[in-house]
């Protein structure tokens, strides 16, 4: 509990609720204990904190008024979309509220000639594609949870997907936002045009994990559907051969829309549940999707085939129609939930490595799996080196949860040691903040904190996430920066 609340009167909570109801109406505030439980975690269910209230604003103005109230009263708040995040980014704060954006779910504008769509943050990812598919367009970022996850959540996490090797991630498709800043001010950044003058604060906000404000409107870029799509499924004895094929394909100048690898353990489980047509006896499979103009896809196919053969592919299947293609992908997109069928519990890790280090890293993960005595299934976006090792464990065995988390943490160290990152698309959130300093030193983190303080000097906006140690900010206007003696002497900085 923060010091501010300790000094509050015993009735403050009731008064605070009354003020929220005044802003949002009675149906916009959830206060029943039973209902609040539904918001006590996101998809990373290992951590749970019950919020004091959940609010469901319908407009930017309502979001702004709620934030202004929180700002005045010193109440922390956590923005939340569909709650599909895997790093605890939407985990509530002790004695804080959750601002759920799910009622702001309108598609505001579809502008086909200019290739833009404007949406509210609670719009589900796939709805955007559905809104433009009649015109043969789609929204490119396609996280596995796209039928549930919201655009607001995608913006916060800078979500990726299985096609981002060629088409980029969320930040490459978000051109503008309206955002409510942590003092309640509503501003607009970017828009339908490109290269707008001023600092690229939009670029900072995408992927800021809800720490810099609450996005209430998003302008998206939509992309024309490719003329042709060809999906190849290759099987190998060894996962290293699949990895070498990935490097081989890009070395030949081919950038597929997506390249995905699954190891034997993973693909067997998926095949049992989904029946995607995966060869269950293989050690690994590689899915390669080529798209673009028909002539280009046709020219690239034999190049890919040749690389696969050179790497001793056992079999290569080409999806004969959309139905088979969707089935290949359905298997891939089901990989996480399917793990629930073969193991009582599993932990999804998200690390990135340089593509060229794949074989070495897999070997090290194998070693860690042996060391901890826990199985690790591997599925990854191989084209961009984004690994999703799934650590399988049984929480009912004493100490096994801790062991699983430790193993997952060791995998991140391997990723960073090989020149990679602790997260490619799931975010740092609550779960990985202790690992952020593996990648960034004090000065790096200081700079990031200066940015956080620029937006949220009271530290109320999704506090306790991303950064390993909490830092405070200096309130703007309270001191003159120029005259601070420590700073002047070059001995330190203020926040």
């Amino acid at each position, binding site marked *: 509990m923060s010091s501010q609340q300790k000094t509050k009167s015993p009735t403050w909570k009731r008064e605070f609720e009354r003020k929220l109801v005044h802003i949002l109406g009675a149906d916009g505030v959830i206060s029943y204990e039973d209902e609040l439980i539904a918001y006590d975690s996101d998809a990373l269910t290992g951590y749970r904190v019950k919020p004091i209230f959940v609010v469901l604003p319908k407009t930017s103005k309502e979001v702004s008024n709620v934030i202004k109230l929180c700002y005045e009263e010193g109440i922390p708040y956590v923005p939340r979309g569909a709650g599909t995040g895997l790093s605890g980014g939407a985990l509530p704060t002790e004695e804080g509220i959750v601002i759920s954006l799910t009622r702001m779910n309108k598609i505001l504008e579809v502008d086909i000639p200019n290739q833009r769509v404007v949406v509210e943050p609670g719009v589900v990812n796939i709805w955007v594609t559905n809104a433009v598919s009649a015109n043969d367009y789609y929204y490119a970022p396609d996280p596995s949870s796209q039928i549930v996850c919201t655009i607001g959540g995608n913006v916060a996490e800078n979500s990726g997907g299985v096609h981002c090797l060629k088409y980029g*991630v969320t930040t490459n498709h978000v051109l503008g936002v309206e955002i409510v800043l942590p003092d309640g001010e509503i501003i607009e950044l970017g828009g339908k045009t490109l290269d707008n*003058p001023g600092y690229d604060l939009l670029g900072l906000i995408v992927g800021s994990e809800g720490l810099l404000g609450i996005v209430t409107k998003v302008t998206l870029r939509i992309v*024309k559907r490719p003329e042709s799509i060809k999906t190849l499924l290759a099987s190998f004895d060894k996962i290293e051969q699949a990895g070498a094929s990935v490097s081989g394909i890009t070395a030949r100048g081919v950038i597929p829309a997506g390249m995905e690898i699954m190891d034997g353990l993973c693909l067997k489980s998926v095949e049992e549940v989904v029946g995607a047509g995966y060869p269950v006896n293989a050690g690994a499979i590689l899915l390669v999707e080529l798209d673009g103009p028909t002539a280009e896809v046709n020219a690239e196919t034999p190049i890919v085939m040749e690389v696969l053969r050179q790497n001793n592919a056992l079999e290569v299947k080409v999806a004969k129609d959309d139905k088979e293609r969707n089935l290949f992908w359905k298997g891939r997109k089901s990989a996480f939930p399917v793990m629930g069928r073969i193991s009582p519990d599993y932990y999804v890790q998200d690390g990135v490595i340089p593509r060229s280090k794949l074989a070495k890293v897999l070997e090290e993960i194998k070693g860690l799996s042996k060391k901890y005595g826990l199985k690790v299934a591997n599925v990854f976006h191989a084209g961009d080196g984004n690994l999703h090792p799934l650590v399988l464990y049984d929480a009912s065995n004493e100490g096994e949860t801790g062991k699983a988390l430790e193993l997952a943490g060791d995998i991140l160290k391997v990723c960073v040691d090989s020149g990679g990152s602790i997260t*490619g698309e799931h975010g740092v959130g609550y779960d990985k903040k202790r690992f952020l300093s593996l990648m960034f030193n004090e000065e790096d983190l200081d700079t990031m904190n200066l940015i956080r303080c*620029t937006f949220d000097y009271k530290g109320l906006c999704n506090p306790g996430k991303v950064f390993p140690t909490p830092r405070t900010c200096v309130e703007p206007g309270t001191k003159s920066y120029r005259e601070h003696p420590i700073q002047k002497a070059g001995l330190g900085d203020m926040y």
Partner: protein
Amino acid sequence: MSDSLINSLSAMLGNDNVSIESGCLVLGVSKPLVVVLPQNIEQVSEVMRFASRESLAVIPRGSGTKMGLGNNPDRADLILCTEKLDAVVEHAASDLTATAECGITLDKLQDVLKEQNQFLPIDPSHGYKTTLGGIIATNDSGSLRLRYGTARELLIGLRVVRADGSLFKGGSKVVKNVSGYDLPKLYVGSLGTLGIIVEATFRLYPIPEYSRTYLASFVSADKCQETVISIMNSNLVLASLDFFNSSVLKSIAKSTELDLNSNGYSLAVRVMSVERAVKDQISQVKEICSKNGGRGVLLGDKEEERFWLGLRKFEGGSDGSGRALCKAGVLIEDVAKVFNSVERLHEVKTYAGAKAGNGIVNILIEGEDETLLESVTHLRNFCDSVGGYLVVQRAPEEIKTKIDVWGNIGSGTALMKRLKSNLDPMNLLNPGRFI
């Protein structure tokens, strides 16, 4: 600046790396400036620590091709030149990434990447001598942005020396990464006001096997526009889609000695891929153009290269009295409207070229100072009225003092100012030039 300060800098960097420049006209600075040439990143930190201690205003410079961008600085003491930071740190060809120090010229980097048949797909003006740091700081881009994006899409990691001399990194060396804030994006287009960019990691692309450009001319800007919309709404995957008025094309024809039909308005459509796919798509482009009355020529291998280089050189332009270079951003649909608005300007000579698929229009206006100012104001009002913007990139000093070169930056301005003062509390880096 006092002799003792100059002596301290010489002691720090060596006599050869400190010199005096008699002002900088492009920046509107007439007093002598001290130019320092740090030899490595540590020395950049040292210079900035020194500048902080002595409250010296610092103007970062790469090869100096875009020094005229922005307002004239409020103060200037030191020019910090990054040209000695020119090492390629790593070309990880199998990961399609490269890391280099920021003073390296784009061409020098491309030469290294070419050995592995890769390239950094940025083709800004002043191609041959612009530096990586300059490209990032100004978000300079060219025609290839339609397919590959700008530095914003391609920069994945960087190292920066802050105003107080501290060195930090943002991003990483892998193409996909969401750990911490996306600092590389913040520094793209920050115009040297938030730190000295010293090292950058970019994602790369394989050099396409084959490339062709179809150049078609149309009777009106509106016919060009109809063609642009048809092309953008097709399944074609283009590298570039440029839109010119006749004076731009005449100018390129002259400088490249290419025989180009420069009547009316033109589109240059470039396709890069495997040979079969290029030929196939070019024939579709021809068909779309001819439906709108466009008649054109296919530029062969050598001609094509000359044409695009000619355009880049033209876009780089030159400073001088009597000319203003503007960059407008509008919706894809509104590009022709900007051309028509340019056409209606009086008593000036105009050159307009657009990255039509991106809604970016570069306009060079030549005329007397007074008519220049009128023309720029007129165009800005038009762009604002269609929800776009217009930035004055280069202009004679008299014009810069009479017009806000950046225009309306929008409701984020106060926040941007706070950010600048948090990262550079003493306002030492390019003060007054941007935010």
